[in-house]
């Protein structure tokens, strides 16, 4: 096990396209670091750089005490689970798992023991003689994971390992993965484009967009204090509403800051009843009602646009009805209108 440090890494493709720009982040020894961002933001590229499958244009990558920039993948002591599994199609599950140890000349008896142990841990003992094409998506996933585990590397790199699975299986494997991380005590970098996965899994998360780091913090902090408008809109579901001061009924009560601001309110932060005295009010007409089980998603049009509110109303609501909603000041996020950076409001 070892810490991973990525410092000012830049990746510019031969065509001149910048895929990663000045990316710095680190995973502490034994930490599960989640990298999250929309499709095409450079997540896979970042992992490939760490693994040594591609070379950085600028910057430094360190694993433990070693600077690995110049080392080939064979010597970096990382394991990677690829977005598309990349199992060896002509080898059985057993051989897929064993390949890394075989290459390193592990004695046969020990190899066999390790392979069977990991297979048992992942619940694929019965699959050892099968070929990848004879496995279900979940079994392939486990095999890919097992291949990485067998190596017992300094750093695990997981590239959207669960993206090809259906929701229940994904949730199950996610829990198993978290448990696995605890039991191995391994340093892991987990890449996903699914913000809810990032929130539920990581000890810390890196939000990446357009090849730049937007924020690095614990899931709770990222959710509560998003560093900019992008993070605010990307993390959390349903996504945050963005409003101007004029959207509210009483503009004068909306806290102001320096320069023009944009305000963010999460759908679940609206309430159908006034709370404290300094709550902000917003009036709108119900356009659409959607049940989420115990809660209701309301789409409202207000003076300047639309908002989505998730409520637990006490009476039945009708489409077309005017409704008044309240937001506690503390639930208001503010962003600079031009730069998008977070602006702290005075309480």
């Amino acid at each position, binding site marked *: 096990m070892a810490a991973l440090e990525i410092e000012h890494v830049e990746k510019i493709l031969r065509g001149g396209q910048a895929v990663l720009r000045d990316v710095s982040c680190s995973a502490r020894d034994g930490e599960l670091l989640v990298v999250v961002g929309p499709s095409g933001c450079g997540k896979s590229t970042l992992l490939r750089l760490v693994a040594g499958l591609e070379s950085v244009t600028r910057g430094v990558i360190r694993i433990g005490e070693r600077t690995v920039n110049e080392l080939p*993948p*064979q010597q970096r002591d990382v394991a*990677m689970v690829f977005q598309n599994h*990349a*199992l060896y199609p*002509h080898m059985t599950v057993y051989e897929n798992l064993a390949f890394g140890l075989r*290459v390193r000349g592990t004695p046969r008896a020990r190899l066999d023991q390790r392979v069977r142990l990991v297979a048992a841990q992942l619940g694929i003992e019965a699959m050892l003689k099968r070929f990848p094409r004879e496995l279900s998506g979940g079994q392939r996933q486990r095999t890919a994971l097992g291949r990485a585990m067998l190596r017992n590397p300094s750093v695990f790199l997981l590239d959207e390992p669960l993206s090809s699975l259906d929701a229940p299986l994904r949730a199950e494997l996610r829990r198993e993965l978290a448990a696995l991380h605890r039991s191995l005590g391994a340093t892991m970098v987990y890449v996903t484009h699914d913000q809810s996965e990032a929130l539920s899994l990581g000890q810390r998360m890196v939000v990446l967009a357009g090849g730049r780091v937007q924020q690095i913090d614990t899931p709770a902090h990222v959710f509560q204090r998003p560093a900019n408008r992008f993070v605010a809109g990307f993390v959390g579901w349903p996504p945050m509403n963005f409003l101007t001061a004029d959207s509210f009924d009483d503009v004068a009560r909306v806290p102001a800051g320096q320069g023009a601001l944009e305000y963010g309110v999460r759908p679940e932060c609206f309430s159908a009843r006034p709370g404290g005295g300094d709550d902000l009010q917003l009036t709108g007409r119900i356009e659409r009602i959607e049940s989420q089980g115990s809660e209701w998603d309301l789409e409202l049009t207000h003076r300047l646009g639309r908002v989505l509110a998730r409520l637990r109303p006490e009476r039945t609501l009708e489409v077309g009805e005017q409704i008044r909603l309240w937001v506690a000041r503390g639930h208001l996020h503010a962003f600079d209108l031009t730069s998008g950076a977070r602006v702290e409001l005075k309480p």
Partner: protein
Amino acid sequence: MSLRTRTLRAGTYLGLTGLAGVTLFPLLWVTSIALMRAPEAAAGTPPLWPHHPTLVNVINIISRQHLGRYFFNSIVVATATMALSVLVAGSAGYALARVEFRGRRVVSWLVMLGVLIPNQALVLPLFEMFRTVHLVNHYAALVLPAAANPVGIVLVQAYMRGIPVEILDAARIDGASEWRIYRSIVVPLMAPMLAAVGVLVFVVSWNDFMWPMIAMQQEGMQTLPVALAAIDREHYQDIGLMAAGATMTMLPMVVVFLASQRYYLRSVIAGSLTD
């Protein structure tokens, strides 16, 4: 199955059976003529079936025309060509598809260009080359040019491009050296295509006529088709003998095809197997 698909399927089978018949008929007829006695075979249109099957033509062509010798030459040349070109196509095709090196694009283009050049255009320069190095009338004269087979390289290159890079990357991360990756991952994955290239090269080499005729002028060094042409010129009235020669030339092809069809077919449908 709906009536529509059933009719379609029946039509397909009918069409394919017809095609197979058209292809096989001359082959079977020649074989049948090879088993006929002289008067029967020499008829204006020989019958479809020998009335008194005999091996006399086969025995004659082997014993009197030294066909065994030419057969041996052809086998040696075709086998060596096949082995060498599978080796070359396998490594060059892989390198051009998946190994980064300077000038890769230029080399790729040159190989592509090689596919377009007709063999006939190469005969003269090749002959000059082999004469300067004193390899005319050696097996090498037939094997070496065919081994650098651009079609094989292009086929392997295209096939290799269809295999996800991540599989090779996974092996790198697993700690395998480039040679180990080539041996344990690349070659097994390419195997169906290598088999297809091998069969293709074997057949082309076996049937090749022009270059072997020019490069192998010494008596006893000719390959089967060249020797057969000489026999035909000499014994053009002996239809049975010629048919026996033709049958003997065909036979190994049939064996090669039947033996390799499993791999051959696999490479044709391989696109649907790699996901």
